[in-house]
C-alpha cells in the first residue's frame, strides 16, 4: 500500500458496436496519457500538476469530447467547462462557457491559484484568461468536421445527444433511426448508437499521499447555449480531499443530483468504507435511473473505477506496476 496511483477516463457510455478501429484509437490515447502521468509521478511532480498535465493532453487531442473535438452547442459553437481540485487543502477552481481558451483545465487551475474566487464563467472567465496571458484561439479551433456532421444529425433527430463518434454509413436520419432500432440501450434519451461519451478526466495520488482530480468537457451535443453539466461543479463531476480524488462522467444531470464525486469521499469519511467499496456503493445506490461512471484514487495508493453505463473509456496504473486500459 502507498505509492502513487493514477486513473484517466474519456467518458462513460459506449456503443457495444463501436468499430474496433475507434476502440483501438481510444485505447492508444488513454495509454499515451496514462504514460504521461506516470512519468510525471516518477519525477515526483505533485498530484495537482499531474492531473492538469494529463487533462491538457486529453483536451488537445480531438478524439474525446473536450477542448479540441468538443461537442457543439445548438448554435454550432463550442462552450467548454472544467474543474480541478487539490485534495490537500480542498482548494478548487472551475470555469464554464469558455470559448477561446485552448486549455480550459489550465484556466480552472488559474482561477484556483490566481483569483480570489473558485468559479468563473463566460465573458468573465475569458477576460481573466486574457489578463493571465493564457493561450487563446478562435472558437473554430475546437470544432471538428465530425462534430459538425453529428450536430446536423442531432438536429434532424431534434434531440440533445451525447457527442456522437461512430461514423454512420449515411448521414441521414434514416440511418440514425435504423441504427437506433437496432440497439435498445439508451443514454440521455438517445439510442446508444447515436450517443458517445462526453468528458475527460484524471485523478491522481502522488508518493506523498496527496490527491487531486480534474475534469473537462465540451458538454452535450446540441445543448442550449449556457447549459452547464456536472464537470465544472465541485462535488458533482470533480472532488478531491484528504482521502481520495474522483472524476465523473456520464449523464450530467444524474451526476449532479447524486453529487457523485463528493459522495465517494463522504462515504469513505463518514461511513468508513474503503475506496472500491465506496465507489461500488455510490454507483449502485446514488445513480437512480441515471447512467454514469467515475474513476477514483485513494491516499493509500489504490485506484478504482465504477460505472453503470455500457462501458467507460478508462486507464489506470499504480506504482507497484499495475496498469490497465479498457472500455468494457
Amino acid at each position: 500500500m502507498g505509492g502513487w496511483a493514477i486513473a484517466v477516463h474519456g467518458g462513460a457510455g459506449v456503443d457495444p458496436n463501436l468499430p474496433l478501429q475507434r476502440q483501438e484509437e481510444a485505447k492508444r490515447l488513454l495509454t499515451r496519457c496514462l504514460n504521461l502521468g506516470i512519468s510525471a509521478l516518477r519525477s515526483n511532480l505533485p498530484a495537482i500538476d499531474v492531473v492538469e498535465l494529463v487533462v491538457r493532453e486529453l483536451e488537445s487531442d480531438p478524439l474525446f469530447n473536450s477542448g479540441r473535438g468538443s461537442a457543439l452547442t445548438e448554435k454550432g459553437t463550442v462552450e467548454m467547462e472544467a474543474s480541478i481540485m487539490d485534495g490537500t487543502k480542498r482548494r478548487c477552481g472551475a470555469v464554464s462557457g469558455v470559448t477561446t481558451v485552448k486549455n480550459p483545465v489550465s484556466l480552472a487551475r488559474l482561477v484556483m491559484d490566481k483569483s480570489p474566487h473558485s468559479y468563473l464563467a463566460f465573458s468573465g472567465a475569458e477576460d481573466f484568461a486574457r489578463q493571465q496571458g493564457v493561450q487563446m484561439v478562435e472558437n473554430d479551433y475546437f470544432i471538428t468536421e465530425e462534430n459538425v456532421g453529428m450536430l446536423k444529425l442531432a438536429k434532424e433527430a431534434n434531440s440533445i445527444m451525447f457527442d456522437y463518434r461512430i461514423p454512420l454509413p449515411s448521414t441521414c436520419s434514416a440511418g440514425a433511426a435504423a441504427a437506433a432500432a437496432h440497439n435498445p440501450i439508451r443514454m440521455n434519451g438517445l439510442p446508444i448508437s447515436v450517443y458517445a461519451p462526453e468528458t475527460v478526466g484524471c485523478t491522481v495520488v502522488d508518493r506523498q499521499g496527496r490527491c487531486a482530480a480534474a475534469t473537462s468537457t465540451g458538454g452535450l451535443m446540441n445543448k442550449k447555449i449556457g447549459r452547464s453539466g456536472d464537470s465544472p461543479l465541485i462535488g458533482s463531476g470533480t472532488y478531491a480531499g484528504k482521502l481520495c480524488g474522483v472524476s465523473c462522467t456520464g449523464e450530467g444531470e444524474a451526476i449532479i443530483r447524486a453529487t457523485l464525486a463528493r459522495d465517494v469521499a463522504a462515504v469513505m469519511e463518514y461511513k468508513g468504507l474503503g475506496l472500491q467499496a465506496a465507489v461500488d456503493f455510490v454507483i449502485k445506490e446514488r445513480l437512480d435511473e441515471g447512467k454514469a461512471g467515475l474513476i477514483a484514487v485513494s491516499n493509500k495508493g489504490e485506484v478504482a473505477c465504477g460505472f453503470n453505463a455500457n462501458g467507460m473509456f478508462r486507464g489506470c496504473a499504480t506504482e507497484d506496476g499495475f496498469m490497465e486500459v479498457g472500455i468494457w
Partner: protein
Amino acid sequence: MGWAIALHGGAGDIPRSLSPDRHLPREAALRHCLQLGVSALQSHAHPLDVVELVVRELENHPQFNAGKGSVLTTDGTVEMEACIMDGKTMRCGAVSGLTTVVNAVSVARLVMDKTPHIYLGFQGAEAFAREHGLETVDPSHFITPGNIERLKQAKEANRVQIDYTQPIKQDEKSEVLAANGGSGDSQIGTVGCVAVDRDGNLATATSTGGLVNKMVGRIGDTPVIGAGTYANSYCAVSATGRGEAVIRATVARDVAALMEYKGLSLQEAAAYVVGERVPQGTAGLVAVSASGEVTMPFNTTGMFRACATEDGYTEIGIWPTEQE
C-alpha cells in the same frame, strides 16, 4: 411530525452596533416572509411552491442581497444566481449571471421543470427566461444606492467582501463606519428558504447577488448543487456566507450526508458542518428535516434568520440567542 420552515437573509459580520433603522426593517421583512411561508404550508402548498414564494419575496426586498438590492460586481453591474431543489425527487434547477430577470429563483424553477437540464447561465439563462415570459426589467432596477456605496468602500479597501465590513483594525473600522454614516453593515450574502410539509416532502431554494466587487462572471456557492443548496429525503439545506468556503466544504450536501452515513441528527449534522468544516466567520445555514425539525447554525457574528414549526415554535433573529 408536522410542517416546518426556515429562511435566511444572509450570514456575516453583522455588528451588534447596527442602528435600528438598519435592522428593524429587515427583521420585519423576515417576519413577513415567514408568515407568507407559514400560511402557504398551512394551506397545504407543496414545499417547492413555498420556498419559491418566500425567496421571490426576499428577492424583491431591496435590503437583502438578492434580486433588487443585489451587491455589485467590480464593473458596477448586477449578476444574480439562484437554485432550487426538491428533496423527494432530487430534481433541481440553477441559474447564474442573470442581469434583467426580476426573480432568479423562478428561472431556476423553470429550468428544473421545463428543461432536461439543471443549470443555465448568463446569456443562455436570460434568453430562456425571456422565451418563457418571465418578468424582465432594465438592469438598473436592481441597483440600490447602498450597494453603490458598498462597492466604493470595497474598491477603496481593495477587497472582495461578503458585503459586510470585514473584521479589520478597530480604528480603521470606525473610520469607515463614520465615513459612511454607519452604513458599514450587514446586508449580506444570499437569501434562502427551506420547508417540509406534513408528509415529509422537502424543498430548498437560495438566491443571491454574490460578493461585493466580485469579478464579472464569478459564480458562488448558491447555484452549485451540494454547496449552497441541497435537498434529499433526509433534509433540505440552504447555506450562506463566503461562497468559496461553502463550495470547498460542500456544506449543504454534507449536512445530509452526515445524517445519512453517520446517523447524526439534523442539528448535530448542521452544527458539525458549520463548526468544523468551514473556517470561523465564513458560513451559516438553515435546514429542516423530514420529521419537521429545524436548525439555523452560523459561525459568523450574525445571520438574518427566521423559522417556524407546526407545533407553534417561532424564532426571528440576527445575532446568537443567549443559549448559543
